[in-house]
């Protein structure tokens, strides 16, 4: 006899309840077999990552060296804005990455949701703090760029406002991982948060841009990208991306190790 809490279900609803087994029961069983497979996959990943990393680090360092040289030394200054245009070379790559990483997080979450690949959850979780830092840098460098350009430390233009909201979306994602002790539960919920976020991002961006045109009829003059400025920009963007890649692979490795430790600890507790 099901013990139904008195306040919750009317008689009519009760009569429509029956003890049909939900697909969730089957999913739980499948989850166990996935856990078995987990032991095989991460080792392959670690081996691949360890092989790639030294090259990636070197490439990142080279790109940074070349990019910084071009950005600070050899590239021309803008006729109107002077030296401050150099800030573009750290602001724009950070902004690109902030957006790219969020999309990556969402793709990883989708893979985790559809294929139940445990590494996908780790990839999404590892990307979160990294993306948040790049987003923060984009905001700060944007503000620093804004002061000499527009005279104020902060202005609610479309791009900065959207980036601010993206920061909130990152914080929400990070908060999910923090709020739940059970990593499987946190993973399941984080997937939903990331995917809902990525679906709403274009809508949010569209609405903020539209809102901005309402209040600022004169569109801000777009920075004409002179080819001499394009190369340092691309190089810095590449440097930032390679840097992220190295950090991400390392962070995923950290997640895998942390999980192994947790599993070992649980096993030890269970066997005492």
């Amino acid at each position, binding site marked *: 006899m099901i013990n139904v809490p008195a306040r919750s279900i009317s008689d009519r609803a009760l009569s429509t309840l029956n003890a049909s087994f939900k697909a969730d029961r089957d999913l739980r069983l499948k989850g166990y077999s996935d856990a078995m497979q987990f032991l095989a996959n991460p080792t392959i990943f670690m081996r691949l990552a360890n092989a790639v990393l030294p090259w990636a680090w070197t490439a990142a360092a080279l790109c940074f060296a070349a990019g910084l040289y071009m950005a600070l030394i050899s590239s021309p200054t803008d006729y109107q804005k002077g030296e401050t245009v150099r800030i573009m070379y750290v602001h724009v790559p950070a902004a690109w990455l902030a957006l790219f990483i969020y999309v990556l997080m969402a793709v990883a979450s989708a893979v985790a949701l559809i294929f139940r690949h445990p590494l996908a959850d780790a990839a999404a979780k590892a990307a979160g703090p990294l993306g948040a830092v790049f987003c923060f840098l984009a905001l700060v460098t944007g503000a620093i760029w804004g002061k000499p350009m527009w005279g104020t430390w902060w202005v609610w233009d479309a791009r900065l406002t959207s980036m601010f*909201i993206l920061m909130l979306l990152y914080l929400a994602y990070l908060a999910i991982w923090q709020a739940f002790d059970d990593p499987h539960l946190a993973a399941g919920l984080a997937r939903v948060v990331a995917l809902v976020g990525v679906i*709403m991002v274009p809508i949010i961006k569209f609405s903020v841009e539209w809102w901005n045109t309402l209040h600022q009829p004169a569109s801000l003059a777009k920075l004409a990208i002179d080819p001499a400025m394009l190369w340092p920009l691309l190089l810095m963007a590449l440097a930032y991306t390679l840097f992220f890649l190295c950090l991400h692979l390392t962070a995923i490795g950290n997640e895998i190790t942390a999980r192994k430790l947790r599993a070992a600890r649980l096993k030890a507790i269970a066997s005492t």
Partner: protein
Amino acid sequence: MTAAFVALIRRDLLLSYRGGGVGAALAFMLAFLVMIPLAIGPDQETLSRLAPGLMWLALLLAVLLTTERLFQQDWDDGSLELLAMAPLPLELLCLAKALAHWLGVSLPLAIVAGPLGILLNLPVDRLAVLLLGMVTGSLALSLIAAIAGAVTAGLRRGGLLIPLLVLPLYVPVLIFGLATTGGDLGPAGATPSLLVLAAIVLITLVLQPWAAAAALRAYFR
């Protein structure tokens, strides 16, 4: 299945009226309303200019306050797991809860918020279009809140997480809801903004059942 769907909505509405969901939210709106002139000064012209935006904020925050009750109460006493075992698909269960929240909380608040704006010297010729925008947008507000509610269903101290989840998603609704009362609307009037608002509602209508059900499944595993 329709019977179960409707029964669920009725049940949630009944609980909402008994538990005072809309009452608490309305009280919040009134309290927020009185703080506004205290914060920005009683100058009628300023208030009149800001009134639509401020009433939208009041609506958003009031709906936000009631989000916790959406799924948490049922999770806490176990009735959510029971309901999930019903032949009703989990997605429809979540949709039913969101609709019940809309009917019981968001819609009444949206209807009341416009007239309350008169206290802030809302220009009366904007009232009708503000009301229309709020009523349209209120469904999206409930749906988005329901996603966050499902994600935080099992979280005791999850109250702090809900605004962080919900408010960024509310931004498009706020922007286009406000746009209906904008300054110079042009020859097309408020219609384009209302249409975009309706489109946003439709998007969230499709998104919410899937997202909330996925979140609940994470809890059930």
